[in-house]
């Protein structure tokens, strides 16, 4: 099985976001970057498919040289080949999807796995756009996957329940927490990954479709009424929920 996993590098979930000097992007100083958490499920699923069916897992990321760090992480997890599509420009989802589509056309994978969203822009766009560019079926936010021959059954979360989608290979799956428990790389594998080759190709530049005007830190004014656990205060809370918040 020829498996392609697309990954991205994002700020750690504990990052305190500060608006940078340009007023429209994040201040990078002191920010720790990690492999996008949802991509871990994609990598793990790719490795499991290889363990079951044989074949190779290729990981690809789009970005500048710093993207190599997360490629080393997934090489340590057990990915066979790593590729970086290099660019220094700021990019949007279409740019990423376009470049991933080019890689996919050259590798011709049976399945493409991606995290359901990257936790920087939280757009949930790349998997679907990539699928459309390649003319492939796709299932998003997948929490269960079975593949037999070329038949694919994917379970996905929807509001208030789950749905099962049937499709066939080749296809694109975007992964959600619950699909599997990603493995931790072992120390010897982390060491070995440091010297593994990373193939570099240059990105195809394109005109961005979105322009960012500004970034701000939201500050919703809260009422901040802090009460004690006395009976009177609990009565007061119920009254506030009714009269002030108009909830009950």
């Amino acid at each position, binding site marked *: 099985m020829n498996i392609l996993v697309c990954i991205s590098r994002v700020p750690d*979930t504990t990052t305190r976001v500060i608006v940078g000097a340009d007023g429209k992007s994040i201040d990078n100083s002191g920010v720790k970057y990690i492999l996008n958490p949802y991509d871990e499920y994609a990598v793990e699923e790719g490795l499991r498919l290889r363990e079951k069916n044989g074949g190779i897992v290729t990981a690809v990321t789009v970005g500048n040289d710093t993207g190599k760090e997360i490629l080393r992480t997934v090489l340590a997890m057990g990915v066979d080949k790593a590729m970086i599509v290099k660019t220094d420009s700021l990019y949007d989802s279409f740019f990423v999807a376009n470049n991933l589509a080019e890689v996919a056309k050259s590798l011709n994978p049976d399945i493409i796995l991606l995290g359901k969203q990257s936790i920087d822009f939280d757009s949930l766009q790349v998997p679907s756009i990539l*699928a459309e560019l390649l003319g492939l079926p796709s299932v998003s936010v997948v929490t269960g996957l079975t593949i037999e021959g070329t038949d694919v059954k994917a379970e996905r979360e929807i509001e208030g329940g789950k749905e099962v989608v049937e499709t066939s290979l080749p296809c694109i799956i975007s992964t959600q927490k619950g699909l599997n428990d990603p493995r931790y790389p072992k120390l010897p594998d982390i060491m070995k990954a440091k010297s593994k080759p990373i193939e570099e190709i240059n990105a195809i530049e394109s005109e961005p479709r979105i322009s960012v005007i500004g*970034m701000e830190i939201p500050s919703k004014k809260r*009422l901040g009424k802090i009460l004690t656990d006395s009976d009177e205060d609990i009565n007061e*809370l119920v009254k506030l929920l009714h009269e002030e918040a108009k909830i009950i």
Partner: protein
Amino acid sequence: MKKILIYLEPNKEVLKRTSYELISAAKILSEQLNIGFLGVLVNGTESQVKSAGEYGLTEVIMVNNAILNDYSLTSYAKVISETAKSSDCDILLFAGNASGLELAPRVAAKLSAGYISDCIALESAGGQITAKKPVYAGKAVITSKIKTETQVFALRPNVFTAVKTSTTDVAIKNLEIYITQEDVKSKVVSLTKNEGKLDVLEADIIVSGGRGIKAPENYNLIELLADSFGAAVGASRAVVDAGWRPHTEQVGQTGKTVSPSLYVACGISGAIQHLAGMSTSKIILAINKDKDAPIFKVADYGIVGDLFAVIPKLSEKIHEFKK
């Protein structure tokens, strides 16, 4: 800009609440931009169309085709993009729900359009639409605009208000779109609803528990309070990772992002990852014994106290009050 097209989603005899939210948002945009707006409904019914009139929609394009009876992402994406082209619409609105977030990017790609997902505000000035969207899990908000002629937006559910208007007559236009089995590249074969349980994504009130609940069996307290509010049960990452609750209930950065009318956080300290998933809630109530817990900084109401003592009392008072 020419016209706005809204993707309408059926819910039994009527439409999903998010569809009415889209209609109201489109109505405002159409007045600001001085352009028309219409809806597209696939294999819909007259009663569904009629209900759209209660929110001021005046025109719906109906696409009916037996092939579309089973939901298929690929064929629906084709139908909507073809509808947009044939009806000369260049602004497309989708709900940012499970189906909309899959469909909208595909439609955008088909139409070579720019696309902004998860919008929490749309404004128009000088004939240009700008959209606000949370990034970094809600720790920041960006304002951006689309540079292509055709523009696609997905709106976060429960943020835009659905406003009833004086009922309008809805003109129905039937449109035939050539669809074959070839267009059905994937298909929904089954759908299971979480029986009797309200989902955090659909709930108007959510009661969540965190580490302060101490043991999985104590979650009946959270359920008790949720029951008195008529609320859905949510959970922090800590209790999901501990295996006490299913991940479908997880609210926060690697869980669900919610904006209910009331969010009740019980024994949740308020880690930045959790705040990311619920900070747009209209009212936040926190119950925590640590008066310095960060959750109180974002709370409208807070009770500093032991949740094991507070929840039964509060739950009883609410029941009493509701009688």
